[in-house]
């Protein structure tokens, strides 16, 4: 279980390889890389994005990500997992986030990886502000679709 919150870019290939290195119990590694798009859907309209800046809550961010990762390990048989999330200013095409899971079983790796990004999206204290040209900026609004995706992982009581 590893959480990294950093300004710098990361190397997805190196991170993914590290997850199974030296552990022949791992049968599959699932990963998701989130990137800055040059467009964003604002109230149903596509709008250009020149760059964005990610603000975060140092301390709480790491704590939340560690809790999310621990929850994934509680639910699925994982050999290893990783969350890397950047903050600061980024332009389209840049990597924002990497989540990855390693398991003996591909189904567990897929579900846990999907869970990590869905929960991260609604629980980790990050906020995006987009540059929309001529010095203007717009705080990205939370999406109902992200809430719905996270709700899918709610455990039946």
């Amino acid at each position, binding site marked *: 279980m590893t959480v990294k919150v950093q300004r710098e870019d990361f190397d997805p290939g190196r991170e993914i390889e590290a997850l199974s290195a030296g552990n022949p119990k791992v049968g599959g590694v699932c990963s998701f890389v*989130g990137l800055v798009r040059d467009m964003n859907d604002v109230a149903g309209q596509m709008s250009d994005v020149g760059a964005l800046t*990610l*603000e*975060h*809550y140092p*301390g*709480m961010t790491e*704590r939340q990500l560690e809790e999310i990762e621990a929850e994934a390990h509680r639910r699925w048989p994982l050999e290893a997992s990783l969350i890397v*999330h950047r903050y600061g200013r980024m332009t389209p095409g840049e990597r*924002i*986030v990497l989540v990855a899971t390693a398991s003996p079983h591909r189904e567990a790796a897929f579900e846990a990886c999907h869970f990590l*990004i869905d929960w*991260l*999206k*609604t*629980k*980790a*204290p*990050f*906020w*995006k*502000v987009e540059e929309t040209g001529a010095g203007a900026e717009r*705080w*990205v*609004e*939370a999406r109902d679709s*992200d809430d719905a995706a996270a709700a899918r992982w709610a455990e039946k009581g």
Partner: protein
Amino acid sequence: MKVLYFAWLRQKIGVGEESVDPPADVADVRALVAWLKERGPGYEQAFQDLGAIKLAVNQEYADLDHPVKRGDEVAFFPPVTGG
């Protein structure tokens, strides 16, 4: 007590972090917000719609009824948009 503001709350209030010393009858987050709103129009504006705001006490999500005391770290922010 340390109070933190993020994203557009930080912008409206004009500061990201401050130390405050509310009176003893400010015992939960709801009372803290009411007290903070008296500090100026930026606060008033930032806390206008409490339904649009999330909060954390000592870096864990909490609600308006959560108790607060001297030494706590309380943070206010919009719904998160990372990932």
